């Protein structure tokens, strides 16, 4: 009885807001607005690639994964240019629990996209309106001449399309933080660090390389448009790399390739 009362009290809006306020330093999302999108679906800002790559997206059908029946879902893919402008919409309707979608970007090279979902059926026991779906799914990269799919998770995001058809985000910029890469770089390999800006303000990023005493050896500044991206390249000679910005986590997606491109490793650092 007491347990049920505690659960009920915890589920009130006031309790949720208090909990998020208490833990706000560790929550990357804004506490308000509570219900920013009627579609009940927010997306990470994903990276795709078409220059010598195929990009495959593992699109989850959340209601099918938690129902007794297969539920029809419409997956919406919205492609963005490097400066954060919407360039193409694509949608697929399916019932599969995890649908492998081959992306068809309008441009050649590295690009961004978001994945939102919509349900029309009302007969499932859990209504989609009860659940805020957060799409952080796996993006797979297949390099030309390779047969394996290199999957990597979405990075920080929570992007959605507002009523006026403009992109919005529940991630904001706050205190300046420095993110350091936790990887032993391989000399001679090519590294491309893709940095995204999942916020609605311009983002400045300082890229620094360090020696053993943490003395700065290289420094580059990048400016990224809202919902845009930038790429920093390095050949693995720099042992310690850091990215400083006002994002909660300035964590790039990294493409690691050997000179002859026989080796590919895609990871979030």
């Amino acid at each position, binding site marked *: 009885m007491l347990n049920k009362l505690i659960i009920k009290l915890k589920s009130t809006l006031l309790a949720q807001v208090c909990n998020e306020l208490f833990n706000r330093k560790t929550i990357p999302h804004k506490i308000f607005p509570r219900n920013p999108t009627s579609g009940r679906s927010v997306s990470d800002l994903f990276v795709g690639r078409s220059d010598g790559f195929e990009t495959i997206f593992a699109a989850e059908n959340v209601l099918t994964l*938690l129902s007794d029946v297969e539920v029809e879902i419409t997956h919406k893919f919205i492609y963005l240019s490097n400066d954060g402008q919407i360039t193409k919409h694509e949608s697929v309707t399916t019932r599969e629990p995890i649908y492998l979608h081959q992306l068809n970007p309008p441009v050649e090279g590295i690009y961004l996209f978001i994945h939102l979902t919509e349900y029309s059926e009302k007969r499932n026991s859990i209504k989609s309106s009860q659940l805020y*779906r957060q799409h952080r799914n796996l993006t797979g990269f297949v390099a030309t001449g390779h*047969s*394996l799919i290199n999957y990597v998770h979405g990075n920080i995001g929570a992007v959605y399309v507002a009523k006026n058809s403009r992109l919005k985000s529940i991630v904001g910029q706050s205190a300046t933080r420095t993110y350091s890469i936790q*990887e032993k770089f391989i000399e001679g390999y090519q590294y491309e660090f893709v940095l995204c800006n999942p916020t609605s303000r311009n983002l400045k990023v300082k890229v620094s390389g360090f020696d053993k*005493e*943490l003395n700065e050896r290289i420094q580059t500044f990048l400016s990224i448009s809202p919902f845009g991206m930038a790429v920093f390249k390095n050949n693995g000679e720099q042992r310690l790399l850091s990215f400083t910005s006002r994002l909660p986590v300035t964590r790039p997606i990294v493409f690691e390739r050997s000179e002859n491109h026989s080796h590919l490793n895609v990871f979030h650092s």
Partner: protein
Amino acid sequence: MSDYMYLPKISDDVESSLSITNVVTNSRGLSPVRAEFDLLILASKSGSQGWKVVRRIDFEGAEVKQLLSSDYSLEVGELIVVLPVDKSTKYLPELESIPIPKSRSMDSSLCSSRGSLRFHYGNSSSSFQSEYPTSMAQRHFGNMTSFRVPDKELDNDKTHLACFINLSNTENLKNKKFEIIVQDAKRQILDRLDFIENACTIYKVPLYLHKTQLTFTINGCVAIPLFVSLCTKPIKQITVEHSHPPVEMFWRQKSQRVGVGRIRQVWNAK
């Protein structure tokens, strides 16, 4: 918040390496900062409960240390546990339970410091950021539900492995037996295998199931699932990725509670 790291042996012809830096991953300020700690390397004592201290490593300045599975003569399914510890704390050569790792955070910034776990196969390698949260190792109960992304084709030259990492504080072990249940999208049970604690339990996905959407569940125990794929043609290659827990599919506490509750009800009932 503190985390363990692990270095598993997943196959005879696959080696692994773990890269750990003493530069704090994410912290407030314009420059990176260094955390002071040593690395303690532990191996599970075969045939009995408890842990053996294999090595202790300290850092010289800001650097990335790399540990190799080939240095520890591991059998397939065994793992080495790596944890940051206070520089001043002494440890006996044999321990009854795993010590609590030292936190490497400087402030409340998101994203704890982890290790980069890389699997090597031929000239190919694949990595991801790995950690095993202390809170998971101390749990007496829990469930695991993990949805595997199916392959696009049936290919004899490919091998798909699902690996389940578990670390349990040995004081929590009560000789309970757990199993991993393999189900298809219609919730038909296709396979069951014994789940091993403080180890890496490996399931080789049979060829006929490569294109099938599989769900792996454990009732009563927690684990971190890793999905590894290998191919021999046109060249030897390997890829790895971990899967997020179901809570990551939902946003805001209320949706998380309803959604995860429903997933446990649907998938962990058997």
